[in-house]
């Protein structure tokens, strides 16, 4: 219920929201948790395994119990912490992991079966009969497990990603962080101050502490205003630092306020990559529970969280509260409750020497040993030297001490350091280069100590970075010492929870130790302790203490498990922002793209590029009709195809020829100016990397081409060879792929078409096969190459890309007037298969020059990349699979790429595998299906019949092994 006059909520702005169908009222500034508590809602969820009733336990992102689902349909968002969800008008929340309702959950029966569902029970059963695992046991387990549900619909909320750089990143904007930011910023450093909360201030918002004589919350507000006004400070609220990475890189998740996120163009959050030269970890500390029987009932809360609800949100979490602790946090809670007018039924302090001057029943040297209540806490059992008493209470505030939030300091796999005085792990020094921890995160628990530590850390960082710091005073505030007495578990009957989310109890940890899961990692993995959404933030230290006890070791020897990013869970959509749909990778368009689309050609992806599959004409209803027509067009008239996507690299300099000799298998330095040569590049491991052409444009200027797919790889390779292996060669490389729009003009009428366009016509004498040179179109300088990937008399013409669109349109319309036209990738593929030309279907990374019959292209006169490795015995073994063509001779006239080859009569099994098909098509030119493939010792097997089997598509036929070049084997058409 609300406490009049308390809290930082906007009492003037009431909002209504629903939880599990019921309408409630809260105020702006409320979290879902504070608003539900204000409305007296205590049970908000069910536990993971036993489906026990659970209530709000904390007031922060570490909340283990109050996980809810927000929204409907595609907007449904599971597993949100009610303690961080901001209440707003119309918020629609519901509980999860229960059926049919939160109040009556069928799987609560699990709780009765708990003796049989202890740690690791599933490793010992569900094995018979074998097939029942997938059919029976696993589906039941899967349905029972899990927390909230995804909607199954595509996520429509948009996130974004961004980068920011600074001198100092301050993580946490409590008293420590505010002072650290101030200290560094005043000295002139660029500071980013980030805090996951909606409002900076940290614990100052939750306490009644004063700083410099004003309420802590007000001091914080003024400090933030001062910082925000400085040009070198960026205050980022709602921003959780989620991970520490190398060289001062941090990941952060910023969540946008609901109203802003709904603006057109806005996002629901930003995933930041922050780069900081230094970092101050001022993330504070988290309070930890104590294990005692039935410590998981709704109403059992952390003592510090109770203060937060009272002071920050003006909510009394109960009408009658018992406070229990082993340190002064419990006393502070009791005092704040009394001050707010809430009844405190008892203060139980396990320290026998503790004193208390508050007006309430005080139990020093006592412990809470049990709780009662059906769906929520009804009473608490206190055990002291005088015996046990049961006290009615609807809220139990617990403090087992504080754990510094050192997680980020341990993200580089360093382990925290045990401090026996504080009974806590502290961040290790220097574990994240550039990071220092300060304040509560470093085990300093008084406000004054935090303020001082923050200022000191900020100023030290600034000086380290070369800034001059002035005198700044540490504000006045309480400076009480931290006194704690060890208490991890209260002995007794009944289950005592450690990991509330995963339902791990003290008994589970003890049983794990009994079964020899004594290493902390084994215990974790066997019991699932610390593997739930809070990643053990609430429970790991106590679980360690229990394990240490059960194995007779100390806590430091027992050690911790590894801390891993992210600090708080991060939506996949945030880290992958922008990648849905076409945003996954950049799109590359040729200059003919628009015209090609206008002609209705379906586009296919080629690397990042788009290329036309085929150009359908009226009356054509199947792609094969279009493809066959386009093939015939090229064979009989003329076809036009955009080949701009092939890589083009300028190689210039006095040593250009020598350089190319080194990267190609064959000699390029002997190529005459004005001529083009086909070339093969090997990887250094002796396998084929790529093929292409090399044109010598001038004495010291070559232009080489690569395949579309390998353009980037080849450029990287050439730069490597030049810079890392042959820096002595005076040669310069530049990619010119995008400068030129290049079109293949292929077919018997190709020259006629071009001559209609060129300012001066070309002929065979001036421009024979494999010639290249400059020509002009309408006064524009263009490059012409007489090369062919179709086996026809053909050219490739390149113009500056600004003219590409115009030239393509011109070429196609002229081709159409000559019974030709544009052709796409399907026809291009058929044309090259007919001619036995290879693509990356054949040079797939495992083939050698030997395999494709080009071993003679490896020049004996010189060294080249890959030459030595290509000579390894295994790469020139006659038994290797060699390139052949195939034609069907069985009843089924079909060849399928991906099918395997066997000797006729052999079974289709691995032992008998003879090869496989790489490419196949119907050849309109030859009038039958042909394929290319690799066959063991294939070159010696021409004319042999082999069995082709494709199990996947149910094809089994005989093929004849034929020469790879089926069309115009002597090349007359190329030259004619």
């Amino acid at each position, binding site marked *: 219920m609300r406490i009049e006059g308390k809290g930082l909520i906007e009492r003037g702005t009431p909002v209504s929201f629903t939880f599990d169908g019921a309408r409630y009222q809260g105020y702006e500034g409320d979290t879902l948790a504070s608003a539900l508590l204000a409305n007296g809602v205590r049970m908000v969820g069910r536990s993971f395994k036993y489906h026990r009733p659970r209530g709000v336990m904390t007031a922060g992102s570490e909340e283990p119990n109050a996980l809810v689902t927000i929204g409907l349909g595609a907007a449904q968002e599971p597993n949100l912490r009610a303690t961080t969800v901001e209440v707003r008008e119309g918020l629609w929340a519901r509980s999860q992991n229960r059926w049919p309702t939160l109040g009556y959950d069928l799987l609560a029966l699990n709780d009765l079966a708990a003796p049989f569902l202890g740690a690791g029970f599933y490793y010992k059963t569900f094995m018979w009969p074998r097939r029942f695992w997938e059919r029976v046991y696993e589906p039941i387990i899967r349905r029972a497990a899990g927390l909230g549900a995804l909607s199954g619909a595509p996520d429509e909320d948009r996130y974004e990603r*961004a980068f920011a750089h600074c001198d100092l990143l301050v993580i946490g904007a409590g008293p420590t962080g505010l002072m650290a930011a101030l200290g560094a910023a005043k000295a002139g450093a660029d500071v980013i101050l980030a805090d996951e909360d909606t409002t900076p201030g940290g614990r100052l918002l939750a306490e009644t502490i004063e700083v410099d004589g004003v309420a802590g919350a007000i001091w914080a507000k003024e400090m933030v205003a001062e910082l925000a006004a400085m040009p070198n400070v960026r205050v980022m609220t709602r921003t959780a630092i989620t991970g520490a990475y190398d060289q001062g890189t941090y990941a952060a998740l910023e969540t946008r306020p609901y109203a802003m996120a709904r603006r057109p163009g806005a996002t629901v959050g930003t995933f930041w990559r922050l780069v900081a030269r230094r970092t101050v970890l001022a993330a504070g500390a988290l309070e930890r529970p104590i294990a005692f029987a039935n410590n998981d009932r709704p109403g059992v809360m952390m003592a510090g969280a109770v203060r937060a609800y009272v002071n920050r949100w003006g909510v009394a979490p109960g009408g009658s509260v018992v406070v229990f602790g082993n340190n002064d946090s419990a006393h502070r809670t009791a005092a704040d409750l009394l001050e707010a007018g809430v009844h405190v039924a008892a203060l139980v302090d396990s320290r026998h020497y503790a004193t208390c001057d508050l007006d309430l029943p005080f139990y020093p040297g006592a412990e809470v040993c049990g709780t009662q209540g059906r769906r929520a806490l009804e009473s608490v059992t206190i055990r002291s030297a005088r015996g046990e008493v049961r006290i009615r209470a609807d809220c139990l505030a617990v403090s087992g001490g504080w754990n510094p939030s050192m997680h980020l300091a341990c993200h580089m796999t360093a382990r925290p350091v045990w401090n026996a005085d504080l009974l806590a792990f502290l961040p290790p020094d220097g574990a994240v280069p550039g990071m220092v921890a300060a304040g509560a995160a470093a085990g300093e628990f008084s406000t004054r100590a935090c303020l001082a530590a923050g200022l000191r850390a900020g100023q030290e960082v600034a000086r380290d970075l070369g800034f001059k710091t002035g005198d700044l005073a540490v504000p006045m505030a309480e400076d009480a010492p931290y006194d704690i007495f060890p208490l991890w578990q209260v002995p007794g009957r009944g289950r005592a929870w450690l990991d509330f989310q995963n339902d791990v109890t003290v008994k589970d940890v003890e049983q794990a130790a009994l079964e020899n899961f004594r290493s902390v990692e084994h215990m974790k993995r066997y019991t699932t302790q610390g593997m739930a959404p809070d990643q053990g933030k609430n429970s790991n230290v106590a679980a360690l203490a229990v394990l240490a006890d059960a194995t007779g070791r100390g806590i430091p020897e027992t050690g911790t498990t590894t801390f891993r990013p992210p600090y708080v869970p991060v939506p996949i959509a945030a880290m992958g922002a922008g990648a849905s749909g076409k945003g996954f990778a950049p799109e590359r368009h040729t200059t003919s793209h628009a015209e090609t689309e206008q002609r209705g050609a379906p586009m296919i992806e080629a690397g990042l590029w788009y290329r036309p599959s085929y150009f359908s004409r009226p009356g054509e209803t199947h792609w094969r009709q279009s493809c066959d027509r386009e093939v015939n067009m090229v064979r009989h008239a003329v076809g036009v195809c955009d080949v701009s996507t092939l890589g083009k690299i300028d190689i210039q300099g006095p040593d250009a020829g020598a350089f190319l000799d080194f990267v190609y298998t064959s000699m390029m330095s002997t190529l005459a100016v004005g001529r083009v040569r086909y070339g093969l590049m090997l990887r250094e491991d002796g396998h084929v990397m790529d093929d292409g052409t090399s044109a010598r444009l001038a004495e010291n200027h070559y232009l080489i081409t690569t395949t579309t797919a390998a353009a980037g790889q080849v450029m990287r390779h050439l730069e490597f060879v030049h810079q890392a292996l042959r820096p002595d060669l005076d040669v310069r490389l530049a990619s*010119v792929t995008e400068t030129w729009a290049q079109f293949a003009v292929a077919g018997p009428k190709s020259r006629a078409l071009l001559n209609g366009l060129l300012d001066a016509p070309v002929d065979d004498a001036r421009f024979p096969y494999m010639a290249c040179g400059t020509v002009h179109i309408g*006064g524009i300088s263009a490059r012409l190459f007489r090369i062919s990937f179709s086996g026809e008399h053909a050219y490739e013409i390149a113009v500056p890309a600004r003219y590409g*669109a115009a030239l393509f349109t011109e070429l196609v319309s002229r081709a159409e007037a000559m019974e030709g036209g544009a052709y796409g990738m399907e026809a291009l593929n058929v044309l090259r298969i007919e001619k036995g030309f290879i693509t990356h279907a054949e040079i797939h990374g495992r083939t050698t020059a030997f395999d494709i019959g080009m071993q003679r292209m490896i020049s004996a006169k010189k060294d080249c990349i890959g030459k030595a490795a290509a000579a390894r015995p295994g790469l020139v073994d006659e038994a290797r699979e060699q390139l052949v063509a195939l034609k069907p001779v069985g009843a089924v006239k079909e060849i399928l790429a991906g099918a395997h080859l066997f000797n006729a009569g052999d079974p289709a099994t691995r032992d008998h595998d003879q090869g496989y098909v790489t490419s196949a098509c119907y050849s309109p030119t030859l009038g039958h299906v042909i394929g290319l493939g690799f066959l063991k010792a294939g070159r010696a097997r021409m004319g042999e019949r082999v069995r082709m089997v494709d199990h996947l598509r149910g094809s089994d036929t005989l093929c004849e092994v034929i020469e790879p070049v089926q069309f115009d084997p002597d090349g007359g058409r190329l030259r004619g």
Partner: protein
Amino acid sequence: MVDLKSQTPCAGRVPLRVGPLSLTEDTPEHMTAIAPYIGQDQALSDALKSAHGMAAPGTGRMTGKSGARALWFGQRMILLIGPEPEAGLAEFAALSDQSDGWAVLRLEGAGARDVLARLTPLDLRPAQFRRGHTARSDCAHMAASITRLGDEAYQIMVFRSMAATLVHEVKIAMGRVVAQK
């Protein structure tokens, strides 16, 4: 004689305005990659100065003025933007025509830096990336050249074929910066 019409890389996609931010296309007549041969850096710089009135820029810098600039473009590479390179430069450097190879965009207005910070990992803080500074970096998964032209004015270059993607990405980021102010 045929008359081939020319088309700019971003034709039909820009100019764009979102709030105070604008995105426009620059279409320099010539762009030439100039890569000095071994030991010719100084000779090239001198030749560049006498031919085009600007020295070769140092790493990450730009020389010249609007209309005729020399942009550092990578290890041992300068991009001459605007004028047609004088033929004599070829004595000292490999010249490679890049005139049509790049989309050149200009992003300007209050918040331009925040827009870019959504696209590139470069440190864009004004004191680190000053006016006249240039860098090769990543921009929305594309290899880019980014130059600071003014207080809140940047030039972004990517390969011509990616013009549409770049404009799309910048436009979205512009919308976000304006909406989330």
